[in-house]
């Protein structure tokens, strides 16, 4: 069975959910091997094994964090050349896609980004034009490099032992051009990550202020959801940029997306249109976002949201 290489997404130890999704896909294609760049690989092996990783290649060096993207692409290219895998899978995150792009240039292999489904014969599904059209596509030259959208495929465990293999790898100087001089992490508290969450509650201009985002956070917490924001809310400084949903923010595909005080501009839709269910709270019945709603409330969010939050908490307690 062909080996399938998976680039792990992690933050220095904790395996990101998308990596378990990639493993779930990879098992259908061949024997999954995880490529772990940076610290924490040994600790993560158990978790990776739970989802069917047969091998974990660990290359630990500070270079992977100290220089932008290129070192990871070098590592992945070196392993891909050596192992001749059946496919290379990465997360369709900002960094995952960039690694995939550089790997494609190095190898001449075809790269598909933002894939939401992959068949055993490597035909990929990609939603395009904000989800209006779905294309089936394939990488027809070399080993397919596939970037899979987080949360598009449900992770399923398939426990087994993962064999660790240390990789001696020195990052070449040519990959050390762009130096990270400072890393600034904004904590998101205990909420799930935006692209991984089963439920996302987003606020827009209608929320009115940064302080009022308490309402959005309250609703999100009642549902164990992540918080998102429209560009209007981010540009106003009410919520940090990394929570922006849309064309130039995150693309999310949760089970449920709740849009509060968001009009539904095409650029916002581009980031949430493939959500499974959509709920809308907006006081303007003409807002285009209602076209997407499975359930919509025409009303003032300052009345509807607190009432909804209280009711959810009540029902949750009653169990």
């Amino acid at each position, binding site marked *: 069975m062909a080996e399938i290489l998976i680039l792990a997404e992690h933050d220095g130890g904790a395996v990101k959910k998308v990596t378990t999704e990639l493993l779930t896909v990879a098992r259908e294609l061949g024997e999954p091997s995880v490529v772990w760049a940076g610290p924490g690989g040994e600790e993560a092996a158990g978790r990776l094994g739970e989802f069917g990783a047969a091998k974990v290649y660990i290359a630990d060096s500070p270079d992977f964090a100290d220089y*932008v*993207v*290129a070192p990871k*692409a070098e590592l992945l290219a070196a392993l891909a050349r050596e192992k001749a895998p059946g496919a290379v899978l990465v997360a369709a995150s*900002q*960094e995952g*896609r*960039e690694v995939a*792009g*550089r790997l494609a*240039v*190095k190898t*001449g292999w*075809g*790269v598909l980004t933002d894939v939401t489904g992959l068949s055993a014969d490597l*035909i990929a599904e990609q*939603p*395009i*034009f*904000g989800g209006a*059209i*779905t*294309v*089936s*596509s*394939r990488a*027809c*030259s*070399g080993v397919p490099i596939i970037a899979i959208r987080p949360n598009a495929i449900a992770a399923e465990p398939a426990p087994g032992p993962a064999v660790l293999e240390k990789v001696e790898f020195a990052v070449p100087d040519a990959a050390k*051009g762009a*130096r*990270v*001089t*400072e*890393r*600034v992490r904004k904590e998101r508290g205990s909420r799930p990550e935006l692209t991984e969450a089963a439920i996302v509650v987003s606020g827009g201009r209608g929320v009115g202020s940064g302080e009022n985002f308490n309402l959005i956070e309250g609703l999100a917490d009642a*549902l164990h959801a992540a918080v998102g924001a429209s*560009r209007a809310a981010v*540009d106003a400084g009410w919520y940090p*940029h*990394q929570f922006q949903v849309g064309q*130039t923010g995150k693309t999310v595909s949760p*089970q*449920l997306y709740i849009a509060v005080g968001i009009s539904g501009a095409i650029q916002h839709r581009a980031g949430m249109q493939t959500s499974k269910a959509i709920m809308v*709270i907006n006081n303007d*019945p003409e807002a285009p976002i209602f*076209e997407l709603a*499975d*359930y*919509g*409330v*025409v*009303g003032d969010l300052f*009345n*509807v949201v607190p009432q909804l*939050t*209280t*009711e*959810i908490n009540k*029902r949750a307690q009653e169990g």
Partner: protein
Amino acid sequence: MNITVCVKQVPDTGLDRELRAGDSTVDREAVEAVINELDEFAIEEGLQLAQKHGGEVTILSMGPDQAAESIRKALAMGGDKGVHVSDPALHGSDALVTSAVLAAALARTGFDLVILGSESTDARTGILAAMLAERLGVPQLTFADGVEIDGQSVRVRRLADYGYDMVEADLPAVVSVVEKTNEPRYPSFKGIMAAKKKPIEVLTLADLELTADQAGLGASATEVTEFRKRPPRQVGTIVEDEGKGGIEAAGFLTTQKFI
């Protein structure tokens, strides 16, 4: 300083975009074509840097004949000259081929700084900047909110999932910018008039010493085998809040098993 901004012409995102039935490529005739709106931020960043540090801004675009309109618009914003890679053999090129062609054009014209938009609104791969950096063997400073030049080095704030990184590199380099970095200017009447006289060099594949079998659909490492329109969403339930809207919404969440 020699700044080149990569600009793509795309179908207007506000209209119903289509793929062509025959070869599953983007239908560039059905819908009005515009500058990729994210590239306007790249153009503005280039113009501001040139203003501050001196130098010329070149607008580079690969695309069919009509892409010249987008180059002309970028020149009306203030770009100095254009380079238009246009060749029928380029039709259907994927990201891998596009990056090879743009890299060849950049190598030919020379550059200190290449600026791209963070993604194109039609392809939405967001990987071209990384691919160009790889091909040209220069540092990659992508998803930048703010670009500073200091002598021979460039410094950006790279937005990331967890916050941001400050990133530094020596020139020459490839940068892509996000839409928060600046406020693109509108072309003035004077700018539009001046743009008519600015030079646009048209390059074919042969000028770049590439052959037809290295470009277009045939050379692309990916192919679309099939496409279909997403079925229209079922019309949902819309209720007017008459005091119990929140409780009713909770009812929906309960029946859908979210609570």
